[in-house]
Structure formats: C-alpha cells, structure tokens
C-alpha cells in the first residue's frame, strides 16, 4: 500500500506542474481554486493526470469535493485502498 506522505508529494508535484506554483507554495490546506488559480481547464488537467498516474477513475460527484491538496490525497488514498482490496 502506498504511503500517504509519498502520495501527498506525488500529487503536489502534479499540482505544481499544472499550476506553475512552487512545491513549497502548495500547503496541505491551500485552496486550489482561490490561491493557486486552478480554473476549469486546470481542474480537468489535474484530474486526468491523477487518473492516469494511479489508474483510477474519479467519479464526477467526487470532483467538486477536491478543494485542497489534502482532499485530493484522501480521495486517491481511499480509491487505491478500495482497489487493493
């Protein structure tokens, strides 16, 4: 099972790549939309990058729940756990 801290760093990399913000500017509770200028296109870009990397499919109803890095980590962690079982 993937370590949560490793997962957090990997997802942080994805968000940094897409948003252009430095890793150290992305804190667990940074609001992705308001503080990192994540618009609709970037929200899709991040979702698709996560889906590709972890071979999962994020449900439509789960997308709006991702407000911060922590939200994304929890969601992916949960899905990977389910997949593992």
């Amino acid at each position, binding site marked *: 099972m993937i370590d949560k801290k490793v997962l957090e760093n990997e997802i942080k990399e994805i968000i940094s790549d*897409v948003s*252009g*913000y*430095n890793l150290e500017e992305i804190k667990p509770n940074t609001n992705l*939309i308001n503080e990192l200028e*994540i*618009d*609709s*296109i*970037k*929200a*899709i*870009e991040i*979702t*698709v*990058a996560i889906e590709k990397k972890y071979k999962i499919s994020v449900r*439509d109803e789960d*997308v*709006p729940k*991702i407000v911060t890095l922590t939200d994304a980590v929890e969601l992916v962690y949960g899905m990977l756990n389910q997949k593992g079982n």
Partner: protein
Amino acid sequence: MKMSSNEYDAVIIGAGIGGLVCGCYLAKAGMKVLIAEQHNKPGGYCTSFKRGNFTFDAAPHCFGSYREGGMLRKIFSDIGIDKKLNVIRANPSDIIITPNYKINIWNNMEETIEDFSQHFPDYRDKIKQLFYLLVDTNPSSFSNFRNITFRDLLNYYLKNEILKEIIALPLLAIIGLPSSKISAFVGAKLYSEFLFDGGYYPAGGMQVLPDTLAMTFIKFGGELRLSCLVNKIIVKDNKVKGIILEKNEIIQSKYVISNCDARQTFLKLLGRKLITDDFYNKLISMIPSMSNFILYLGLDKNFQTSLKTGSAHYFFNHYSSEFAYKFVKKGDFKKYGGFAFRVSHDKSSIYAGMPAPFKNKIFWGNNKYHVMNAFIDRIEKYIMPDLSKHIIYKDAATPYTMYRYTLNYRGAAYGWLSVPSQLIIPEFKKPPFIKNLYMVGHWTTYGIGISGAAYVGYDTAKLISKNNDRQNNKNLII
C-alpha cells in the same frame, strides 16, 4: 549579462493570437522576445483584407469572453490595450433561424432565457437551469463535463428533440460537429464564452486586434519579424537551443514557443527522431477539426435588409445536426442545409460560412466558383431575396486557402476536433520530452477560437515566467 543580437530569452513561432498574447506577457515581464511569422501580417486566422473599398474579415468575424471578468477582458487590461480598442457589441449577438423559429441570443441572459421559453414554455425552468449551468464559474462543475458529449448534457435537462437541436445548431455551424460528437466541456465553453458573451467587434475590423497586440508587444521591447518562415527548432541534449530561419540564420533562445500547427511543430520543425514513439503515435492518430468555406460579398449602396446588422445568424432548413454533419463532412453543402452569416455593421458587406472538408488543392481549384455561386443562391433563396442584384464584389476562401495563409493542417479552423477523447492532452501544451519547449494556440487541446487561443498564450507565459524566475533564483543562490 548582455545578449548578442541573435540571442533571445524566448522565440515564438507564429504571430497568431496565442503567440502575440504570450509574447506581450513575456516582453512585459522583461524578457527579450522574438516573434517570427511566416505571413506578411500578424493574426493567424484573425486577419482582415482589403478589396477596393471593402474590408473583409478573413475568418473570425467577432469575439467573445469580453464581459467584466471575462478572460479576454482580463488579458487586454493586463497588457493595457482595453482602453485603446473601440469595441462595439451586437445585441442580439447571435440569431438562430429555422423553418419555424427565430430565436435571439441577447447580451442579457434573462432575455435569452425569455426568448427560448416563449417558444418552449413547458421547458422554461429547465432552459434556465441549463443556461445557468453553462455559465457556472465553479471550475469543478465544469470538470464533470470532461468525459461526456454535449448531447449527454442536453439529454439530462431536456426531452424536446427540436429544442435540443436548436441549441446544438449554432455549435454545428461554428465548429462543424453535431451535439453527439462535441465534447460537453467545449460545447459549454462555446456557449458561455462565445455565444452568451459574444458579438464583440473591434471598430475597423478584426485585424485591429492582432495589430494592436503586435504594437503593444513591440512597445514592451519585443521584436516581430514578418514574412519570416522558421525551418527548424534547434535541440541539444533534449533541450531547446533556438531556431533556424531561412538562409540558415540561427537564432539562439532559452525558450521556444510554437504558435503554429502541431504537425509542423513536431514532424517538421523538431523532426520524428526527437519525439517519443508514444507521442508520435498519439500525434498521427489525432483528428483535426473541420475547415471552413467562407464567402465574402461586397454590396452596393442600395442594399437594404431587415436583418440585424453585426449579429451572427445561424440558418438551418431542418432540425438535425446529425444529418447535416453526415453530409457536410463529404462536402455536400446543399444537404447540410445551413450556413452562418453576418451583414457588416455598415451594411456594406456580407460574411457567410459553412464547415467544409479539406479535400485537396485540385478539388477546390475546380469547385471553388461552383460552390461559391450555389452558396449565394441558397442565401438568396432562404434569407435575402434579390441579394445577387446588389453584389459588386464576390470571392471565397476554401479550406485550401485557409491552409495556404496559415499552414494549419488541413485548413483546420479550430485545431484538433473537439471530441471528449481529444480534450486537454498536456503533452501538446508542454511536450515532456523536450525541455523549455511550449506550444500555444488552438493545437494545444486547451482552447479554441480567439479567447481560447489568448487564454493558452496567457497561461503559458505565466508558466514560463514562473519557471524562469525559479531558474534565475537558483543561479543567484549558486
């Protein structure tokens, strides 16, 4: 460190709207930037040309996303040209005409909902819900549209087939796809950024936009070279080093940004050897968008019309975008049964267009005048009786013309086809296998049309500036 004259921080290949916007931001941030454009004027598809006393817009004939807070308004205000431009707006911006309906898209959303609801009173609430969803600014509600088609979205809200088709027809007229094929994300963006917030026009013609951007770019210290074809992108150790122009002139640069066609960028300027097999396979399997056949008519002073000048009209003699798509793909324009047109604000000219397949140079050489005259006949038959009596100049651009002036693959009007599977593919915007290479414009899969191209130009400039600051800081620390 002082740079030599042939050394730049960034070179941009192509002075389309994406390249110009990107160039303005980078130059404004203090970078030394060169834009090389193969045509003799800036703009890409967004140009105008003169014939006698007439000025015609070559392809785009209005723009969107210019409300307070709209993307293009933000960009123009960032680079300080919003006050310089005299932008007029048609109201209604768009008008849909079918055998039984004439529905306006007004500048005011409530009026538009009212217009649709008067014709379909049972759907008043659903129309309102759908239209407000289309303009919802919450990024995550749009993310849900990534895998579905516009048809799926319409089916969710509406049951009336005619109403669904009426909403789908402008999209068919603009990008040549029926609702069952077009990505829900792109369909929603076209509605929110180009129809509900559309109809803007720079006084003087569309060429004013790229001209103003080019002048601003130069004012910020940028250098623009026209009639300057780029032959090669120089790469060393998987990192860009510059470009080679005609006569083997070498330009060195830290960043290279391609605002030209994707196939040209990867297969010609870089070359097959420099791109990965995976990306090559992806690139050659991608389907481009449809091209356009555009008609330019110059009219005499006696021409009168009850049609609203400046507004984009979408006429169809049926209610089936599926049927129309099947035929227009083959170049059967009669069975396509529709066209888009706009009478200029001063009533001196008409711009009319239809999606069209690329075919080839010989086909259009043989068929251009036949297609053009049949097109005029259909406008006369359905919309403007006696039109031909008032025509004093006529010409047309075929898909081959589109290719010839811009080198866009197969004369594609909107980059890659806007289907869900071709939406937002990061490798096109920032190819991971070559460092410091970026793409801007409609071939990135990130945005189409003027505001889409401008968005990608703005966004890429922002990423490059951030990356550049980071590298410079690192150098300072060392």
